[in-house]
């Protein structure tokens, strides 16, 4: 308590280097706001480039932070390779820095997640400008809101304390609620924002209640302290209720069944680029929080295991989410709704990774990271094509509207095919390796359990069956594009920015599918510190 001098004395300005991506993004967000306020003229499209520069600066910041955090095993490529093959990484050498009295932790996990968020923000910014112009609801603040939401995600990914977890989640969510409702002449957008906001507010309340209970039992909000305290109090009912509430709250954010009810409506009503941002960025950030809190801090066998363990609960959640998400997606004719259900199903696959991480599979964290990066490129790309195809007053959201796209716009149809294949998990794309690594991590967890139970094995089997089911509705769009006669004229967006975003994400999806090792190496080095 006598500590302001101490903590000022301990503060190292160099430490801000670790936070560089966050600071740059917030700074550019403020810059966009100021420029917007003082700019003349009605078109705010040029602010997009300010945001793009900001995100590029964020990438440089992330690169510097990555370098500053050092390498796990300097110069030893063999270790990295071994880990990629499934060997356990040396757990002692994970570089990290805990800063601001343990409120934030900087490790390569956080930096990797920052990169994922920056990718999501960059693609969204490129998509959203011309989409808004086309549909007549341009406003300059959208870029600031996207940047601030990204900053919230970064805060969440670096959070080492339940308080910062909460604040990061809220910062992100609040900006996305506004983005969802930003198409103000569309009643659907308002409905989507309302539903998303109400559900999000419930989730916030539950999260806070859960945090309060956990704090009450463990006496700490710091994740590291909770990690040491939790095994002692693991069977305390209040602790279990607290953990349960936190799971529910995160379940809302990642749209896991049974907490997914808002997702299809919110995804359908939101402006399409914002939907992409929700599906990719928000989900990735929530998974970063899940991995830090559950996969790592509560990754103690006594807490994961058993009927009251969070692992069992999440195991069930993963199965229900995958299955119901896929089965519901089968029946959708609206592409945005279909992609919404598909996004729910993907949350289910990702939950497998979190459960595996909880069971101590060392490959689980990198697998989830790889999956999130692949999923970000893929899903934003897919929503990007949807955004590209529509024009004012005619959003072209039904599968029938896509008939014959292959002959009219071969490049766009090609890109959409790549994204659909990746979502379905077909080989030459990123989605295949994403799923593959997740399943492998689950099998490693199965071995960790030494065959005591077929839990993880069952999970993998169900996930594979689900992937097969999903092929039907993904390929339905591909079929419509290539094997049906064009129904009517299309006049898609003429926008270099959108084209750039689509081509870029398609290339990355292919590259991550053809040469996954680079990205996996990076993900393998990105372990949660401490």
């Amino acid at each position, binding site marked *: 308590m006598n500590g302001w001098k101490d903590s000022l004395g301990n503060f190292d300005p160099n430490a801000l280097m670790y936070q560089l991506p966050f600071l740059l993004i917030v700074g550019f967000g403020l810059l966009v706001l100021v420029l917007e306020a003082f700019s003349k003229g*009605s078109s705010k499209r040029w602010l997009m480039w300010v945001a793009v520069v900001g995100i590029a600066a964020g990438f440089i910041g992330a690169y510097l932070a990555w370098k500053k955090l050092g390498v796990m095993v300097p110069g030893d490529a063999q270790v990295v390779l071994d880990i990629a093959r499934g060997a356990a990484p040396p757990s002692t050498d994970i570089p990290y820095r805990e800063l601001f*009295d343990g409120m934030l932790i900087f490790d390569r996990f956080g930096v990797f997640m920052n990169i994922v968020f920056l990718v999501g923000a960059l693609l969204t910014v490129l998509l959203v400008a011309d989409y808004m112009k086309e549909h007549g609801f341009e*406003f300059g603040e959208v870029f600031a*809101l996207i940047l601030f939401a990204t900053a919230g995600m970064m805060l969440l990914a670096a959070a080492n304390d339940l308080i910062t977890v909460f604040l990061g989640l809220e910062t992100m969510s*609040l900006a996305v609620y*506004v983005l969802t409702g930003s198409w103000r002449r569309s009643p659907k957008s308002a409905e989507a924002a309302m539903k998303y906001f109400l559900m999000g507010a419930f989730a916030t309340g539950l999260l806070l209640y859960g945090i309060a209970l956990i704090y009450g039992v463990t006496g700490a909000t710091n994740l590291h302290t909770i990690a040491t305290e939790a095994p002692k109090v693991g069977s305390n009912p209040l602790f279990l209720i607290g953990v349960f509430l936190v799971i529910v709250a995160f379940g809302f954010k990642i749209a896991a069944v049974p907490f997914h009810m808002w997702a299809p409506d919110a995804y359908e009503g939101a402006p399409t680029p914002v939907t992409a941002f929700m599906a990719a960025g928000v989900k990735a950030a929530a998974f970063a929080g899940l991995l830090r809190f559950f996969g790592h801090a509560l990754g103690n066998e006594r807490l994961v295991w058993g009927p009251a363990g969070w692992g069992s609960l999440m195991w069930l959640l993963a199965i229900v989410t995958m299955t119901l998400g896929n089965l519901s997606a089968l029946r959708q004719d609206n592409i945005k709704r279909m992609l919404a259900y598909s996004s729910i199903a993907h949350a289910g696959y990702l939950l497998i990774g979190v459960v595996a991480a909880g069971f101590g599979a060392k490959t689980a964290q990198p697998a989830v990271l790889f999956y999130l990066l692949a999923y970000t490129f893929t899903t934003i790309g897919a929503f990007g094509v949807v955004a590209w195809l529509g024009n*004012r007053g005619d959003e072209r959201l039904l599968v029938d509207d896509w008939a014959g796209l292959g002959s009219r716009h071969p490049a766009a149809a090609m890109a959409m095919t790549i994204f659909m294949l990746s979502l379905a998990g077909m080989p030459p794309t990123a989605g295949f390796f994403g799923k593959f690594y997740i399943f492998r991590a689950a099998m490693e967890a199965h071995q960790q359990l030494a065959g005591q139970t077929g839990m993880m094995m069952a999970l993998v089997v169900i996930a594979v069956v689900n992937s097969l089911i999903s092929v039907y509705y993904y390929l339905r769009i591909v079929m419509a594009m290539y094997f049906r006669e064009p129904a009517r004229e299309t006049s898609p967006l003429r926008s270099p920015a959108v084209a750039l975003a689509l081509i870029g994400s398609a290339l990355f999806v292919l590259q991550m599918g053809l040469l996954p090792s680079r990205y996996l190496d990076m993900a393998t080095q990105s372990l949660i510190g401490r």
Partner: protein
Amino acid sequence: MTRVRVILAALLALGLTVLCVAPALAADGDGDRAGVNGDAIAPAAANGELPAISGDSPAPQKPGTRDLIIFWTVGGLAILGALAVITRKNPVTAVMCLVGTFLALAVVYIMLLAHFLAVIQVLVYAGAIMVLFVFVVMIINREESDAWELSWKTWIGRGVGVAAGVFLAVRFITILARSTRVLGLSDAGWSREEMQHFGTTRAVGELLFTRYLVPFEAVSLLLLIAVIGALVLARPHEKVGDAADAAGSPAGQAKPDKGGAH
């Protein structure tokens, strides 16, 4: 009805007066370090309600008459106000009584050396939240003499309510009594130094700018987003420039809003 309002106004005025006087007294206590404010809590401890605070002098002085008067006045005001909130039939009256209760509680906080909490109590609860309540009540706009017809007004409902209330009160008092006994708060208590490190503006400020610096700054970002979001969602529809919009939506004739108000 008018009589009730006069009484209420009097209560409110009294509360406000006490509120104005109390900080001066608190500063007084800080100055001569006679444990004035700290010891003001002692009589309450006898009732098992609040922990006693001993001053930093080895033999705590008896609480001054002035402190006792203030404590019992605001305590009584708080309880009377709370009772009035649930017994008045007129919603406006109930809401105003709630304001009185909040103000009285703020004074109690000041006496506990929790100055920061007291100010926040007045600003946030008595200020912002109560304004919201009053707005809602006004917007609902019921007849003033019209009592709220609540469906639970049956004997069963009343019985359950009274039983629950009694249960809560008994539990509350017993738990408080036990905790003060177990923790030995009723005679030992905190020293004045500890008190000053707990609730004062200085202590809260120190925490906010050291340990909780990051959350503090993050909240500022959060509030900024909230402000921008409110602006984005609530400003009038913009002029939609080109003719292509004629097909798009009927809102084309809305007024432009680019005055740079933000």
